[in-house]
């Protein structure tokens, strides 16, 4: 028997604030969280800006011992999970704990911790590395901490597929709840990218914008890196209804594909296959989709390729779709991107408001979609997609429906 899967709680921490309320207020105002970088010496980088979580004080969320065990990326994951769980109002029983899953995504795990440890080793000639480095850096650190805190002991794991990690994680959790493998799931992703070593590696890729993130604009100059985390509480529709939970929306489809084309260049065929697969999994037709939260990184290659892929899938309906990239406001959070954008998509369906593509300056004929430039739109959409396309050619797309 298949279950309908609904979202009863959402948590998010990002450059747009520390919770869902702050996140939505920024999105609905089209306000970008991109600012001059604080975490590292900007003089050592060709790009000065990023989307950092502002004013994050771990001691507000964790005691000192916990802080010692948790890298920033894991802290974001746990903070987001606590918000999602609290919002859902779910009451844990032993049976429910045994049948709930936790699936998280992260691209680079605790690389901030790793970077600090290696600076000490290689530059400061300190011959010892902190023994907590291993538990802090492992990519499943957030999933494991959420399990420890909640006592959830069902299927718990972490997916790492670069920028698609969180969509793959949420999609897997969705399928587990739909098929009955799990009764409920906590799913999402988290990432903390702002260490000098990692930023220098992005600089060398030559895809980071020297100013801001302008998805689909003719003069876009690349992505802006962001950090944060987001988690969803997934439950069966009938159980959420039975306990009178507030329902944010429904997850109705998940599609994945691999480009098998190039390690970093995107392919419209691969992206199109993932979107088609998500629509098919949802039982809908392309014409039923009203909004796409795009991958929209603002690199030259992604935005033109994503536009071509959307045209392949939707044909003439592509001109009736609204598409926006909220990365223009919260940055590209890599392994957390799909989760943060899932929350953005669910809140859009909930509130009847579509967030804009911020920082938009001039249309690009290669990106000739309705990208909701700069101004928020009051529009109630029934069904939406959220796209994630990763380096390595791995694509993951989620389909959502407004709360039943």
């Amino acid at each position: 028997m298949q279950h309908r899967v609904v979202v009863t709680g959402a948590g998010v921490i990002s450059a747009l604030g520390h919770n869902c309320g702050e996140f939505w207020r920024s999105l609905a105002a089209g306000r970008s969280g991109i600012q001059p970088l604080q975490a590292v010496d900007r003089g050592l980088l060709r790009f000065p800006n990023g989307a950092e979580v502002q004013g994050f004080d771990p001691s507000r969320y964790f005691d000192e011992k916990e802080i010692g065990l948790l890298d920033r990326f894991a802290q974001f994951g746990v903070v987001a999970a606590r918000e999602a769980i609290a919002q859902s109002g779910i009451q844990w029983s032993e049976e429910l704990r045994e049948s709930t899953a936790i699936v998280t995504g992260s691209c680079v795990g605790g690389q901030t911790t790793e970077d600090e440890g290696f600076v000490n080793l290689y530059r400061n000639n300190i011959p010892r590395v902190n023994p907590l480095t291993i538990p802090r850096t492992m990519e499943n650190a957030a999933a494991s901490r959420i399990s420890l805190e909640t006592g959830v002991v069902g299927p718990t794991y972490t997916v790492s597929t670069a920028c698609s990690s969180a969509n793959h994680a949420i999609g897997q959790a969705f399928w587990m709840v739909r098929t009955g493998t799990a009764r409920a799931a906590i799913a999402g992703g988290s990432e903390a990218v702002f260490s000098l070593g990692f930023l220098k590696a992005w600089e060398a890729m030559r895809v980071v914008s020297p100013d801001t993130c302008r998805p689909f604009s003719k003069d876009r100059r690349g992505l802006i890196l962001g950090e944060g985390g987001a988690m969803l509480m997934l439950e069966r529709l009938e159980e959420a209804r039975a306990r009178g939970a507030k329902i944010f929306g429904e997850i109705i489809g998940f599609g994945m594909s691999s480009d098998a084309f190039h390690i970093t260049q995107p392919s419209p065929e691969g992206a199109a296959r993932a979107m088609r697969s998500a629509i098919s999994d949802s039982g809908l037709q392309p014409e039923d989709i009203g909004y796409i939260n795009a991958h929209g990184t603002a690199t030259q290659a992604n935005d033109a390729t994503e536009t071509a892929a959307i045209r392949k899938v939707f044909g003439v309906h592509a001109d009736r779709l609204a598409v926006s990239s909220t990365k223009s406001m919260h940055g590209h959070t890599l392994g957390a991107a799909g989760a943060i954008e899932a929350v953005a998509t669910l809140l859009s369906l909930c509130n009847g408001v579509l967030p804009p593509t911020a920082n938009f300056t001039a249309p690009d004929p290669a990106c000739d979609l309705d990208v909701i430039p700069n101004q928020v739109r009051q529009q109630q959409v029934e069904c939406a997609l959220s796209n994630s396309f990763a380096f390595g050619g791995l694509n993951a797309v989620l389909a959502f429906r407004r709360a039943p």
Partner: protein
Amino acid sequence: MSHAELTERVRGIIATAQHLPQEKVTADSTFEELGIDSLDGINILFAVENEFNINIPDDAAQNIRSVRDVVEGIASLLEGGQGGQAAVRA
């Protein structure tokens, strides 16, 4: 360094980076002819930056599509004295 010397060094860097015999990489070769894609391109620029201790700005990098573009780009950076960290903020 003469223009000819610079061209020879660039041919060598590209041949090494692309695992090509150096005679295949001529002063007139385009990246397309040599099968150099965008990822190969940034890898070559990385090798060039290390070899000459220069920093090639992203905007300049985007327009480099041939051996000649690389040679001319290096020449202008060296003439402008943009070695070391000075060009990082360019």
